[in-house]
């Protein structure tokens, strides 16, 4: 009985705080994406020859985000029936956008006008308790900023 109460409490805490954190994070992402839209992040490898930057700098941005208890529980249920795991989709989406934003912010601080050859890398950070518990993920975004 006590176990059940703890479980339900964790579920409720995860649901409320997780939703709050996610909507707050999305609001901040959208706001900062608008502010940083003037620094495009370009994924192509070879810069066009008419771009002659005075200086190039390596910029990086990284973030580690964890999923909440409620969503992890939902994903566990999803494992039984299969299909899209929406709770993890929003987690990786938030992490990627946040990492790109941090990279762009570093470029802005250095006075760059665009970021070239952007690469994204995702890795899951294991908590070590269970084999398949994808507790949290790290996303790293990096690229070369062109300063004119």
């Amino acid at each position, binding site marked *: 009985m006590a176990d059940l109460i703890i479980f339900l409490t*964790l579920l409720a*805490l*995860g649901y409320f*705080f*997780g939703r709050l*954190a*996610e909507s707050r*994070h999305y609001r901040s992402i959208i706001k900062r994406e608008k502010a940083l839209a003037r620094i495009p992040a370009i994924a192509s*490898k*070879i*810069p066009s*020859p008419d*771009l*002659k*930057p005075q200086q*190039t*700098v*390596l910029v*990086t941005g*990284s*973030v*580690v*985000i*964890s*999923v*909440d*208890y409620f*969503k*992890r529980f939902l994903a566990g249920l999803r494992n039984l029936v299969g299909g899209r795991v929406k709770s993890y989709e929003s987690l990786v989406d938030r992490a990627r956008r*946040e990492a790109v934003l941090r990279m762009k912010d570093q470029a802005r601080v250095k006075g760059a006008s665009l970021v*070239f*050859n952007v*690469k994204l*890398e995702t*890795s899951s*950070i*294991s*908590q*070590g308790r269970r084999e398949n518990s994808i*507790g*949290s993920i*790290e996303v*790293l975004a*990096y*690229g*070369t900023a062109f300063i004119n």
Partner: protein
Amino acid sequence: MLLTNLEIVPGHRIVKHLGLVQGSSVRAKHVGRDFMAGLKNIFGGELKGYTELLQESRQEAVDRMQEQARAVGANAVLNIRFSTSSVTAGAAELFAYGTAVVLEG
């Protein structure tokens, strides 16, 4: 030392190739951070301690790579790549590698 993940740098010419240089760092997280991360696993959200930890160790990997490049007499490292792998449950390896070159112009 110029560090970039491009293969060519506009406005510069590669005069000498010095081969691959690399740097890595393996870090473990300490108990306090683990505890905070455990709480965050319930509420969700960013694990700031881990973000910082990984940033620090990635910087260390880059520093080591740069040191190696300096030792072979390069003035730039091109085509830098990062990779992360978890060695054991508590530790992660951050790895950076690139091509050391001498640039001119």
